[in-house]
């Protein structure tokens, strides 16, 4: 019987043939934490009596959520994590060195890897064909020490993509549409696997955006095959040695199948306060927007800066709409500067944040006032997410965000392209 991508990777990493429903004790190729989950992970690691890491070169501590730190408590957490990095010799990605998921994609994730991170958006690396998933601090502490973890091998929902996006429609619209369709718990405990002719020519950066939000449908992973586009992405980063092809078996058994024609999609928006509460951008036309955020692990890549700059070139943000741009890594920021995107965005009235998670989770750098509306390219719009339970968050593509920054209202980007 053929295997899905999830079954293939977990069979490989657990040393036996596994199928959906089995328990797999899997080796872990990369384990990481960030600054809001790291301190609890380190405490669990110590409480369990561990002193040494299974592999210090494959253990990473990221300081990205509160970067730079807005208060002394989080600064102390940073000090605690830096000290653990010194004790154990693991990799420290310090303040300003980027959002964990972007750095993992640029430097660390390999097709076929098993990756666990104490951050739910660890699923992002599924865009590169890695079985990457978020876990809590205790699980990651054990992965740090033993170099392994346990999984229930997930059933897979196969999402067959066909056709091409029409003008003004992007990977973000696809994943918002899909979550709206299957619901915020539509894939709980399951794997989402993407395939079909619509995937063959899809850039890895788009795949990362889609995989990033698999968890918003409850999924354990969002997996893409590893193919020529994966090779191209890794080659562009000087990492061709990390490439290996990976595809599901032709006779793989899927729990469910869904087909989406990319050409049928329109710019899509998630409304407060759940990601599956979707509507088309044109249906929400006219809702005033106080703050636009372009960035985060979902849409903070160079392609997003390029797209935002192309829409905002020669234009300006609306006078009552703040425009906050958060490049996801120093590499993205530097290339954005070199290519002139940052200058264009500054000329359009944007605020440029240091590489990091920015205002996404409500720590700093753009908390909402009472009843304010934010249109963000992030992945979550839960009540209280951006620092205020009285704030309202809409999620959309970079193009919809840039278009809405110009008009000060939710705007279908096709109106300004």
């Amino acid at each position: 019987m053929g295997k899905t991508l999830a079954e293939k990777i977990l069979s490989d990493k657990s040393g036996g043939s596994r199928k959906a429903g089995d328990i797999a004790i899997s080796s872990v190729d990369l384990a990481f934490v960030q600054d809001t989950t790291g301190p609890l992970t380190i405490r669990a690691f110590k409480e369990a009596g561990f002193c040494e890491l299974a592999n210090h070169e494959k253990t990473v501590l990221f300081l990205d959520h509160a970067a730079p730190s807005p208060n002394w408590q989080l600064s102390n957490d940073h000090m605690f994590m830096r000290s653990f990095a010194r004790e154990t010799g693991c990799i420290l990605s310090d303040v300003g060195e980027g959002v964990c998921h972007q750095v993992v994609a640029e430097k660390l994730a390999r097709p076929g890897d098993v990756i666990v991170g104490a951050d739910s958006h660890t699923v992002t690396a599924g865009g590169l064909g890695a079985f990457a998933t978020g876990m809590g601090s205790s699980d990651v502490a054990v992965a740090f020490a033993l170099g392994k973890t346990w999984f229930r091998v997930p059933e897979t929902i196969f999402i067959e993509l066909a056709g091409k996006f029409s003008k003004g429609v992007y990977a973000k619209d696809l994943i918002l549409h899909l979550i709206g369709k299957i619901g915020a718990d539509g894939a709980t405990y399951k794997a989402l696997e993407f395939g079909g002719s619509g995937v063959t020519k899809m850039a890895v950066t788009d795949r990362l955006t889609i995989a990033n939000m698999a968890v918003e449908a409850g999924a354990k992973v969002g997996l893409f095959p590893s193919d020529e586009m994966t090779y191209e992405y890794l080659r562009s980063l000087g990492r061709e040695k990390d490439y290996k092809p990976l595809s599901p078996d032709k006779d793989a058994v899927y729990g469910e199948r869904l087909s989406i024609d990319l050409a049928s999609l329109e710019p899509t928006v998630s409304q407060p306060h759940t990601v599956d509460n979707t509507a088309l951008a044109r249906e929400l036309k006219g809702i005033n927007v106080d703050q636009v955020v372009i960035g985060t692990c979902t849409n903070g890549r160079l392609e997003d800066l390029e797209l935002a700059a192309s829409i905002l070139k020669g234009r300006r943000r609306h006078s009552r709409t703040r425009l906050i741009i958060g490049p996801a890594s120093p590499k993205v920021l530097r290339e954005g500067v070199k290519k002139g995107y940052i200058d264009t965005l500054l000329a359009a009235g944007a605020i440029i944040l240091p590489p990091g998670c920015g205002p996404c989770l409500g720590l700093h750098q753009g908390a909402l006032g009472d009843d304010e509306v934010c249109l963000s390219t992030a992945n979550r719009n839960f009540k209280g997410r951006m620092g205020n339970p009285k704030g309202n968050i809409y999620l959309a593509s970079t193009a919809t965000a840039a278009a809405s920054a110009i008009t000060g209202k939710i705007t279908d980007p096709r109106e300004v392209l």
Partner: protein
Amino acid sequence: MLKGKAFKFGDNISTDHIVPGRLAHLRSNLPELAKHVLEDADPDFAGKVKPGDFVVGGSNFGLGSSREHAPLVIKMAGVSAVLAKSVARIFFRNAINRGLPVLICDTDKIKDGDELEVDMAGGKIKNLTRGKEITFKPIPEFMLNILNEGGLVPYITKYGDFKA
């Protein structure tokens, strides 16, 4: 036998309802963080809940972040179990890893303030207020072994590894 009062919440109670990101600076000060448990779903919850009580959700309880602080502060509030129609994957795993039982059952049969009695071994919940009995889905064996040790850290401390 677990016994206490039900605190009923709706569907899609996220980890931001339980411990929002704006309180991230309290995550290394758990007693202080615990004073805010479920604040964005019910600002008075922390003041009302008593040891032994139950948090009762609808579907997809605990969706969102991987922050293990979410089940941890619920447990610190004295809650003896979370009952829900369904639960998000990471929250489920984190709760078990911290020794907090999560019981999947038909929570439509429970109203806010109902007195409940849970028989963990028998897989049954008695709604003493309404005189009804509700069964819950058995916790998967692998997770039950972790729960029975009080969580993942005590489990690993005892066995040194995962028991296949």
